[in-house]
């Protein structure tokens, strides 16, 4: 296959889902089975295509990267020198092909899963249509070769997630969650937009290539490295929003209001990972400072989310927080410079986290049906306290879930172990090089917590025996169309797909394909060089692995002690460190504070400004202040004088003056004459002056 054929191929991959979307929106209802098969077929096709693309690219052209582009808009005029061409185009390199494969794969599986899960939903067709739109937008993010398109698709996935979170918009909570998601993302995007503006203003282009070139040529935005760092961090803001990083992580848990497959696809595997992808894309222009900021944000996020996850009882919420925490890991990885590791974690995480969610979906599905049979509508089908002992009822789900859990906890032989371990090694290396010892520390703690809460979830949901047996009498395993995707993902959670060495990803094909691009920023601002960094990593790798296994084991052990063998009472534990516990339960008060400060603040300000507008501005310009006061003097007056045209700033003056002058008109002719003679004399005096 020729290199050139990649572009049309990629276009095909990109546009197929879109086509599916359009057909479904317009003709979906008329199609047999409401067209779910169409959507699924389409996405599967583009999965197969991207798989071939992946194999060919990595197999035959591992080092080339190819772009295809066209002029979207041309501004300015040649005769005035600079014309400004805005290009749209596609960039295909290893990063891309890996990513599109992941996206299409997960998307396909989710499609299949949804066929079962969404069965008989009110807006079944629209659901699949939106899935298609989302896949299109997500692929767009991945395939683009410029920041503008990146931003465009960035917003589009945002809107898709908005639509899908709000899929059941009859529920107030759902529409709220949707709004929250979009608006919070907008905040991040605004930052990203400013970042893009900085770059565009200086390099008058959006394409990565050109920007990179000019920066490596030593041209700095507004001539200062400060602006370069700023640009990097601002663009990273987009990632902060999308990947639910601190301080914008608050939207993701609420997003669980959407259908579970959506959570799997959008809010676990792909969209939220887009942030990580973005950072990977712009990595070359990130200065050391920017990277440090990124690393810390990642670390903080990982820790916070992990702590919160421990205290949650909603099945999906736990997973949501774990997602946030894992995203934190990836960002942390990229931040410290463990580029490949971070990205690899994205991929592995995509597999097992999607799996976890789908498993959760299958559980909830089963629970729901069981409760439905029992005419029980008030029990929450997602609360793990209502579960327990599902192990026997739904074995497939259970066993796959176990595998995913092991993977996410970073137990050897799993994919999760590989990537996470590399990241931790990276943090260690970073700290030993630049001396930020907090980062590895947080990393390991989070790792331990991850293991702990994941097993807590496992135990509470599947082990033991349920609260009351009768309720779950009719609990059944989910249909094949849902379990098969689970098995596939479970398979993908083993190390073998990523590296033949279960204890070192570095030797695998993945690291071969995805190597850290070299930094283009001026010398002073550069992060530690790749080579040196890599050596250091080699040095600390053993330790990292040891510690990570240790903490993971500890976490698991703890979980069993507390929840399975009941050696330690959870409530006791909670009461011992009640402060922390409360904090964690209330998500460290982020939502509360944001609501109090930003939301309420904005609304109050808006109210004030509205009042200001109607009273003061209008008053200044219209003298409606006068109107208001005169209003009290009776409507008729108001009608005849104000409404009839005296509504302007000089309302009062004119009115007064008019009345005054009118008073002069006494009707007594002699008075008039007096005025006249008087004014005559005044005029005379005036006349003598001039």
């Amino acid at each position, binding site marked *: 296959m020729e290199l050139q054929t990649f572009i049309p191929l990629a276009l095909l991959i990109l546009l197929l889902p879109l086509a599916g979307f359009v057909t479904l929106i317009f003709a979906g209802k008329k199609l047999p089975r409401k067209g779910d098969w169409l959507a699924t077929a389409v996405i599967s096709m583009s999965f197969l295509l991207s798989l071939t693309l992946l194999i060919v690219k990595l197999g035959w052209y591992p080092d080339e990267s190819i772009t295809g582009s066209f002029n979207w808009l041309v501004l300015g005029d040649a005769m005035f020198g600079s014309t400004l061409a805005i290009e749209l185009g596609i960039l295909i390199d290893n990063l891309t092909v890996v990513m599109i494969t992941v996206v299409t794969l997960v998307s396909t599986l989710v499609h299949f899963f949804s066929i079962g899960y969404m069965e008989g939903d009110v807006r079944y067709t629209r659901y699949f249509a939106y899935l298609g739109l989302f896949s299109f937008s997500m692929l767009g993010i991945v395939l683009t070769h410029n920041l503008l398109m990146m931003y465009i698709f960035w917003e589009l996935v945002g809107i898709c997630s908005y639509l899908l979170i709000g899929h059941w918009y009859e529920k107030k909570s759902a529409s709220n969650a949707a709004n929250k998601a979009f608006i919070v993302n907008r905040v991040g995007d605004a930052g990203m937009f400013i970042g893009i503006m900085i770059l565009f203003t200086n390099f008058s282009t959006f394409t990565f290539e050109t920007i990179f070139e000019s920066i490596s040529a030593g041209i700095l935005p507004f001539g200062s490295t400060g602006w370069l760092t700023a640009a990097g961090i601002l663009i990273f803001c987009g990632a902060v929003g999308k990947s639910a990083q601190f301080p914008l992580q608050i939207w993701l848990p609420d997003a669980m209001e959407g259908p579970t497959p959506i959570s799997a696809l959008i809010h676990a595997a792909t969209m939220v990972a887009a942030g990580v992808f973005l950072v990977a894309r712009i990595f070359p222009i990130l200065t050391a400072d920017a990277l440090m900021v990124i690393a810390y944000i990642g670390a903080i996020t990982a820790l916070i989310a992990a702590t919160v996850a421990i205290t949650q009882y909603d099945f999906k919420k736990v997973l949501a927080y774990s997602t946030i925490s894992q995203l934190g890991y990836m960002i942390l990885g990229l931040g410290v410079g463990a580029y490949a590791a971070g990205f690899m974690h994205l991929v592995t995480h995509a597999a097992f986290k999607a799996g976890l969610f789908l498993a959760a979906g299958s559980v909830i599905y089963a629970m729901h049906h069981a409760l439905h049979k029992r005419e029980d509508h008030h029990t929450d089908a997602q609360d793990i306290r209502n579960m327990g002992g599902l192990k026997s009822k739904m074995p497939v789900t259970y066993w796959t879930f176990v595998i995913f859990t092991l993977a996410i906890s970073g137990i050897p032989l799993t994919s999760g172990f590989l990537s996470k371990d590399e990241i931790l090694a990276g943090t260690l290396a970073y700290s030993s090089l630049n001396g930020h010892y907090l980062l590895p520390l947080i990393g390991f703690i989070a790792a331990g917590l991850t293991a702990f809460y994941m097993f807590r979830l496992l135990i509470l949901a599947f082990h033991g025996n349920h609260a009351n047996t009768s309720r779950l009498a009719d609990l059944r395993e989910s249909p094949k169309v849902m379990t098969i995707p689970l098995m596939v993902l479970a398979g993908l959670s083993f190390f073998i797909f990523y590296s033949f060495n279960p204890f070192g990803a570095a030797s695998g094909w993945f690291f071969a394909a995805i190597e850290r691009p070299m930094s283009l920023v001026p010398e002073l601002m550069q992060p530690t060089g790749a080579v040196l960094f890599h050596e250091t990593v080699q040095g600390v790798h053993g330790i990292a692995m040891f510690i990570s296994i240790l903490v993971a084991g500890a976490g698991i052990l703890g979980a069993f002690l507390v929840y399975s063998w009941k050696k330690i009472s959870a409530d006791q534990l909670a009461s011992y460190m009640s402060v922390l516990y409360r904090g964690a339960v209330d998500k460290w008060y982020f939502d509360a504070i944001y609501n109090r400060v930003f939301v309420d603040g904005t609304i109050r300000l808006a109210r004030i400004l509205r009042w200001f507008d109607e009273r003061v501005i209008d008053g200044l310009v219209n003298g409606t202040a006068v109107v208001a006061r005169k209003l009290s003097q009776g409507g008729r007056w108001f009608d005849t004088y104000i409404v009839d045209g005296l509504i302007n700033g000089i309302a009062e003056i004119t009115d007064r003056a008019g009345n005054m002058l009118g008073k002069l008109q006494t009707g007594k002719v*002699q*008075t008039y004459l*007096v005025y006249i*003679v*008087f004014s005559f*004399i005044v005029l*005379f005096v005036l006349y003598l002056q001039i």
Partner: protein
Amino acid sequence: MELTTILFYLFSVATIGAALVMVFSKNIVHSAFALMFTLIGVAALYVLLYADFIAATQLLVYVGGILILILFGVMLTSQKSDTLNFETVMVNVLPASILSVGAVLVLLAVFFSTDWAGSWTTEHSDTVTGLGNMLMGDYILPFIIAGVLLLIAIIGAILMSTRISANTQESN
């Protein structure tokens, strides 16, 4: 100190005095008669200025015509119920007096401050002939127009003074 001088002062004092009476007398009839003396005084001043014809006209038209008119007016308009009442009151005296005093001061100041162009004193032997010629010559148009003016005035006066009533009573 020749005769004309004495006469001038005599007449001017008389005129002004009469005018003062006219202005300030409470009784409108008195005012009317005072006005008569004023007018006669003015006529006399005309004579001093060798304007005998004008003086005559003044006497005829004013004293003979206008004054009678005025008196008729007074009589016709002064009926209170059955008796006649000639009492009239003055309004806004203060501003009026201030202003008129101001006016006279201004005028006097102006008149005395200006040196009038060559004050020649020709004897108009016969003003009547001159006036007659002019009336038939340069001033024929004003003469005619004046006639029309009088016609209009008469029509108007008649229209106003006769009692007529509208075909349709309109509300006030």
